């Protein structure tokens, strides 16, 4: 019999979407059933995440899978950090799913044409383009063959969209809840495998090219991460995070540093920290709008989460590593935002701001105090929602204006005032205009930096203010060009884009923008929550005590056994 307890909730965010993914794959012919299952699964996931946020506030909820005692069995841990990340992620996932479903339904008007063209699929590119053009003109639609082909490719693979999206959700949840390094690796692999498929959805030339780069980079980071896991096991004889936290301080410092750097390198690629970030702005913008939105919001943040977790829990403070991280955070901010300033495509511009703002979170992690960690956690929560909302808005801009290039957009403030508001609010939030949540997160980081007081921390404080201003500059430039300047003829005459945006697409975007505003309204309690989360992260014993309630057995690590064996 199952005994119901708080711990029963912990595996749900992983199990439910995985199960639903299987169901939606089996029911791939019934689009409506697929939609219902996906929404229900994510709602259930959100419910359990919300419950976990409340429960974890009383102390981390630990579930031992299969009832195998902890160091041997697998455990899932939902402490405050995991729970809050999980809740924000599911809200974002749900909004994006809603958006993509609406997009699917809107596009399904073109489905008949797409079906007719599916038979032509196997023929050569030129044949296909010509056929598409003919099919288009027969139906009286004035579309150029290339756009038509793109549309077809976006409509066709909708059957695999839902399962893949749910697998992505399960992977994100698994990474957040993992109680040991190897499950963290598995969680990463689940979400990465799903992201490979989502990124190359439809298989257009651009997406395959971008996807190839993305897959290669992601695989490299996984290999490095796995090597780090192997090293950690060789040094300590365990991969359980709580046990690692107890044993790693006894390990030889240079070996420990090696493990730490390997893990940081692996997570750094995933989180797109500066010298390892070049892949991101090249691969994200080519994907469909909702996919880009969910990637930008979640995937890099899972890397940031892993860095926060391992840095605070596993490794004793190491000034040299922190200093390196500070320098990298500064470089990430500045290089990222300078890249954003130079872009004239909104999607690429936002991808660069995404890289840039990862720097803020790394800044918080590198300062390594309780206050700095709290600010970093708050900033992650804020950034997930705002960045996703902005990418969804850009998807709307692309529909309305027919392009994401700032040179071909214009006059949208007059043509679509609602869209202008939807862009303006998260843009100002990202730039950190008071009193929005971005401002609060940045103030927290700056205060922590000033309190740290070292020269490098001061440089970082100045650097993050400059970055914030440059973000404002880049976004205001985008605002001026896309919304404020005179509209180009194409947009006014309605030759490109759609005159009216479908409500199903505006709805989720507005909800997400509203959610980011709600983060500002509840910033007080939320920041207090982040502070409590940071407190349990940095005090060094809460996590271990939660996993080993009976005073953990420290055991003998492999390394000790090796030395004693080596002596005789």
């Amino acid at each position, binding site marked *: 019999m199952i005994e119901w307890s708080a711990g029963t909730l912990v595996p749900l965010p992983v199990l439910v979407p995985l199960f639903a993914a299987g169901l939606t794959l089996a029911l791939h012919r019934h689009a409506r059933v697929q939609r219902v299952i996906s929404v229900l699964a994510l709602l259930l996931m959100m419910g359990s995440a919300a419950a976990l946020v409340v429960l974890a506030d009383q102390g981390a909820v630990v579930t031992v899978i299969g009832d195998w005692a902890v160091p041997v069995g697998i455990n899932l841990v939902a402490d405050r950090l995991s729970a809050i990340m999980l809740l924000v992620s599911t809200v974002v996932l749900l909004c994006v799913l809603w958006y993509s479903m609406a997009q699917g339904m809107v596009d399904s008007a073109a489905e008949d044409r797409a079906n007719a063209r599916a038979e032509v699929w196997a023929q050569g590119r030129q044949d296909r383009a010509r056929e598409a053009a003919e099919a288009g003109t027969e139906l009286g639609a004035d579309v150029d063959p290339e756009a038509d082909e793109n549309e077809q490719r976006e409509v066709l693979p909708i059957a695999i969209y839902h399962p893949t999206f749910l697998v992505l959700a399960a992977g994100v949840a698994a990474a957040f809840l993992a109680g040991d390094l*190897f499950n963290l690796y*598995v969680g990463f*692999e689940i979400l990465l*495998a799903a992201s*490979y*498929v989502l990124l*190359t959805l439809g*298989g257009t*030339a651009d997406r*395959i*090219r971008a*996807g*190839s780069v993305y*897959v*290669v980079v992601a*695989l*490299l980071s996984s*290999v490095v991460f*796995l*090597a780090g*896991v*192997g*090293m950690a*096991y*060789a040094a300590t004889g365990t*991969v359980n995070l709580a046990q690692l936290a107890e044993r790693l301080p006894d390990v030889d410092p240079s070996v420990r540093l090696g493990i730490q750097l390997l893990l940081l390198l692996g997570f750094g690629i995933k989180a797109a920290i500066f010298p390892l970030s070049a892949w991101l702005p090249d691969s994200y913008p080519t994907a469909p709008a909702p996919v880009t939105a969910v990637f930008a919001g979640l995937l890099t943040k899972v890397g940031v989460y892993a860095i926060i977790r391992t840095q605070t829990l596993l490794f004793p403070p190491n000034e040299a590593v922190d200093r390196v991280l500070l320098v990298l955070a500064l470089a990430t901010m500045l290089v990222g935002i300078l890249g954003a300033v130079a872009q004239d495509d909104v999607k690429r511009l936002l991808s660069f701001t995404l890289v840039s703002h990862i720097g803020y979170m790394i800044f918080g992690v590198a300062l390594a105090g309780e206050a700095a960690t709290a600010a970093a956690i708050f900033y992650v929560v804020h950034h997930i929602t705002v960045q996703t909302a902005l990418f969804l808005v850009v998807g709307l801009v692309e529909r309305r204006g027919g392009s994401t290039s700032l040179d071909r957009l214009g006059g949208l403030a007059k043509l679509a005032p609602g869209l202008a508001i939807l862009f303006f609010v998260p843009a100002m939030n990202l730039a950190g205009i008071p009193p929005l949540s971005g401002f609060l997160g940045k103030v927290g980081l700056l205060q922590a930096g000033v309190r740290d007081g070292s020269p490098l921390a001061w440089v970082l404080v100045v650097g993050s203010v400059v970055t914030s201003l440059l973000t404002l500059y880049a976004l205001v430039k985008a605002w001026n060009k896309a919304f404020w300047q005179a509209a180009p003829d194409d947009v006014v005459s309605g030759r490109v884009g759609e005159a009216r945006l479908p409500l199903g697409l505006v709805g989720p975007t507005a909800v997400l923008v509203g959610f980011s505003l709600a983060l500002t309204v509840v910033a007080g309690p939320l920041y207090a929550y982040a502070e409590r989360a940071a407190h349990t992260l940095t005090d060094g014993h809460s996590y271990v005590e939660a996993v080993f309630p009976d005073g953990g057995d420290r055991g003998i690590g*492999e390394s000790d056994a*090796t030395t004693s*064996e080596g002596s005789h």
Partner: protein
Amino acid sequence: MIVAIIVGLLAAGGVYLVLQREMLRIALGFALLSHAVNVLLVAAGGTGRRDQPLDGAVDPQTTADPLPQAFVLTAIVIAFAITVYMLALSVVGRRDDDTRDLSDAARSEVVASDDPLDVAEIARAYGAAAPEIHKEPTP
């Protein structure tokens, strides 16, 4: 020692292949790299001082550590799935991959096509005098 050499060789081969320009070679390179890490994981269980749990002698001090083997099994399955995906990418993206290195076979194939971009690319590869030679096949 042998294990260390194996890991080194696999990693070196893998890195070499990953640095090539063809997607197929990159996929093979990653197969090697993931094998290198898998062997490393097995080595993390202490292959040097442990033995198979057969022979009736089941002394926990000397029997093989099952945990790294379980890790490796999982990692192999993941690497296998991703390799298949990369192979699919290399097939689908063959004509569109602009970083590819044109092998002789690919060159002759592309020359037969009427894609003006590719002809220019080949002209560059052959040097300035080449375009005249290859103008005939293009309609």
